[in-house]
């Protein structure tokens, strides 16, 4: 198994965490999320993002509101729920913890 093949599932697992982070920073609609991730290791597509956001909404971590736009139909703006904020804080904390562990181990 190549390094890339091992990294792919890690990136995939982390995408949800990153989406929570982006939605947590401010209320966004899907193209904002795509733009934020474009050019990073986590660049993704609508075909991936919509099902992921619907899963997060079912888990009651995000919610959306319709907002009118100057051009075209209204847009869904996503933001975190209280449960979403709590989970993001927990993930953030855990991420820092495992980073420290990875840095410390084997040295």
């Amino acid at each position, binding site marked *: 198994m190549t390094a890339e093949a091992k990294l792919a599932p890690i990136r995939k697992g982390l995408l949800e965490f990153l989406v929570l982070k982006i939605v947590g920073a401010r209320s966004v609609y899907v193209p904002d999320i795509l733009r934020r991730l474009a050019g990073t290791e986590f660049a993704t597509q609508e*075909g991936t993002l919509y099902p992921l956001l*619907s*899963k997060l909404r079912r888990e009651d971590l995000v919610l959306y509101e319709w907002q009118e736009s100057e051009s075209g139909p209204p847009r869904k703006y996503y933001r975190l729920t209280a449960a979403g904020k709590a989970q993001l804080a927990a993930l953030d904390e855990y991420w820092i913890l495992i980073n420290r562990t990875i840095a410390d181990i084997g040295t």
Partner: protein
Amino acid sequence: MQRISVTVILNRSTLQFDAAAYERVERYLAEARHTLADNPDQAEIVADLEQAVADQCTRRLAAGSTIVTLAELQPALDEIGSVQVPGSSTSSERAARPLQQVSEGAMISGVCQGLARYFGLDVSLLRIAAVLLLLATGGGMILVYLALMLLMPYAPLERSGKPVRKIPAKSRSFVEFVRAKLGVAAA
């Protein structure tokens, strides 16, 4: 007379599509619905995707043109990407699966599909190569195919896969019958 365009309602937008683009978008959405068959939010996600297609096509239409063709639709669909269900295996993970025959969507028994999956190749390429080899070997390729059919195990049938056509289903039961006979003979 020629049918020039179809009026398509994609979620909250109405657009004109030419026949080819209409067929393509219909196929894309059918695939999305199929992938999301078990998802309780299927309708909502498909509506989101419809809106994404509409927005992308509108953005790509040159000023003055009103009919969406494949020239706008294909890059739009490429950018949107096929529907990925969170937590399901990706194509790269699937490629790591063992060498097995795949009955769903097979032409004969699923040998080419199995080889394609194992080596991460396009199944059409393998099928063309198989037919060319069949012609080049004057039919000798049939023996190779039969040998592979008997030797390669069958992948378990997947509920989400394409339907198994009549011939692959028959080949599969034939091979299982022969294997059972051989197993009895060896025992």
